[in-house]
C-alpha cells in the first residue's frame, strides 16, 4: 500500500524540525529579560549617585542608598569613590585616599 503524506518518514522529520524551531523561538521571545535590564539601570544609577553624592558631600543614606549591598538583594552594585584629605595631622607625611561606597540592590 502506498504511504500517505503524514506517514512518510521525511515528512515526520520535517514536522519535528518545525515544531522544535517554533518552540525555540517562542521560548526566546517569552523569556524574562527584565532582570538584566533593571540591573544595568541600577549599575548606572549607582555610578551616577556615587559621583554626585561625593561632590555634594552627601552620605550614601542622603542619596537613598547604603554603604553595602543588602544580603536580601538578588543583585546589586556599588559605586566606589575615593576621597583625599590633605589636612593630615602629621607634618611631612602623605595622606592616604579613603574609599566610600554608594550601594543599591534589587
Amino acid at each position, binding site marked *: 500500500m502506498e504511504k500517505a503524506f503524514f506517514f512518510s518518514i521525511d515528512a515526520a522529520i520535517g514536522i519535528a524540525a518545525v515544531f522544535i524551531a*517554533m518552540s525555540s523561538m517562542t521560548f526566546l521571545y517569552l523569556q524574562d529579560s527584565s532582570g538584566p535590564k533593571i540591573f544595568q539601570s541600577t*549599575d548606572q544609577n549607582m555610578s551616577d549617585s556615587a559621583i554626585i553624592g561625593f561632590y555634594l558631600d552627601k552620605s550614601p543614606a542622603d542619596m537613598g542608598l547604603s554603604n553595602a549591598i543588602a544580603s536580601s538583594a538578588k543583585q546589586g552594585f556599588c559605586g566606589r569613590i575615593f576621597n583625599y584629605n590633605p589636612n593630615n595631622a602629621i607634618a611631612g607625611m602623605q595622606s592616604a585616599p579613603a574609599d566610600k561606597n554608594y550601594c543599591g540592590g534589587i
Partner: protein
Amino acid sequence: MNKGIFSGLIAATAIILIGAIILTTSANVKNNGSENFSEKILETKREWNNARYLLDKTLSDKLADSVALPACTFTAPNQEQIESYFSNTIDNSIKNCDFEPVQITSSAQNNFAISFNLGCSKKISNDFEIKKFEKTVAFAKKADVQKDVPAIGKCTITITDLQSNIVEVQKTLP
C-alpha cells in the same frame, strides 16, 4: 499528490525558522554587548574625574609637606617629589589610571602650577580593552607660610587652589 512537495515545503520552512532564530539571538547578543560597552566608558570617565580630584588634593598635600620646620620656609617640590606622591595616591586608589611625566609650569613667588596627562582605561573582557580616556590636567596653587612670632612662634601653612580660590590646607605646626 507527490509527497515530495510537502516534504520540501516543510524542510524549507524549518530552514527559514532556524535562520530567524540565529538572527534574533545574534542581534540580542550584539545589543547587550553595546550596552555593556557604553556603561564601561561612562564608568571610566567617572574614575578619571575621581582620579583628577585625588591628584589635585595630593598636590596640595605635597605643597604643605614642603615647608621646612622649624624655620617655616617653603621650598617648591621638584618633579620627582610630586610624581612620588601621585604614584602613592594612584597605587592606593584607582589603579587603572596613570599619568605621564609632570611638567612644572610655574613656581614663582610661592605660586605653583603643574600640567600633565592623566589617562584611565578599563578592560571589558580578557582580550578587549577600550581606548584609554586621556586628557591634559593643569593645577595651580598658592602656598603661604608665616610664623605668628618670628623665630619662636608656630608655623601656619595655607595652601589655596588658584582655580577655585578654595583653601585646601590650613594647619598650624609647632
